[in-house]
């Protein structure tokens, strides 16, 4: 059973690599997540950290996060009921499992169906993409932690993580 799944994984990764090669580049077509916006989301979810694109987590994760804002990673990020509802709907509609986008789909596939991660940085997709970045690099003063995507991906807030835009600050 396990071997079977491994084979399937291998096959899908091989076929996606060739699809990538066929598309002729790293960035074009479907790699960058579509720019979605909502004024309340952009204002309320960017005061303590960068704005995380809704396509980085599945709908169930956003629902769980949005229903526990009073204890959000050890901080109180609570909102009035109307604002909370509007932002939840926006995140759900544009979540990783609702997007027709290659990167969002990969993120979604890397999360086991029985888990509801609240951190993008804990998904298998994230850890596999960053296995060459050391823990000390993430801790640099100019970066802070792995959660601060914009420090290295300058267009992260727009959902663009393309390799040509990556620059690790000193």
């Amino acid at each position, binding site marked *: 059973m396990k071997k079977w799944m491994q084979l399937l994984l291998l096959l899908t990764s091989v076929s996606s690599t060739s699809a990538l090669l066929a598309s002729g580049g790293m960035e074009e077509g479907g790699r960058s997540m579509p720019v979605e916006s909502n004024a309340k989301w952009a204002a309320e979810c960017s005061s303590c950290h960068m704005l995380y694109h809704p396509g980085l987590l599945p709908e169930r994760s956003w629902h769980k996060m949005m229903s526990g804002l009073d204890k959000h990673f*050890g*901080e*109180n990020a*609570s909102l009035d009921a109307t604002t909370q509802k509007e932002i939840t709907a926006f995140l759900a509609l544009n979540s990783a499992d609702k997007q027709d986008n290659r990167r969002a789909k990969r993120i979604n596939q890397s999360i086991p169906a029985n888990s509801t991660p609240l951190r993008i940085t804990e998904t298998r997709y994230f850890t596999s993409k960053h296995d060459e970045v050391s823990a000390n690099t993430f801790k640099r003063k100019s970066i802070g932690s792995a959660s601060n995507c914009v420090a290295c991906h300058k267009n992260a807030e727009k959902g663009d993580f393309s390799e040509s835009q990556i620059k690790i600050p000193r």
Partner: protein
Amino acid sequence: MRKTILLIGLLLSFNTFAAPPQELLKQYEVQAKQEHSAFTGFSAEKGATFFKTERVHSDGKNVSCATCHTADPRNQGKTRANKVIEPMAPIVNPKRFTDAAKVEKWFGRNCKDVLERACTAQEKGDYISYMLSIK
């Protein structure tokens, strides 16, 4: 009739958007009197102490308002997630204390984060008085 509605609307919009910090202080004064009949006014000095005093949070860490807003409110601060917070003192950041809803939202969050309880109107007024006293 039309005119009164317009006037009320205008007044309301002034109230919710850019009202000077003194307006907000008046609202807190009304509340403070209700909370404490012996209210004698706001104190910038008490606000300064309130801002800097550290307490041990139930998670074991030392926290104060200055943890994020830095000891000198004229400086930029930093959140736990490493994002810049613009200075708290209106002398360098005139937008502070002009949007009542925003101020209430952050007092609500930050007081619970630091003190693990809501702030009193007295504490809010002292805090704003301190910020306004900074030159």
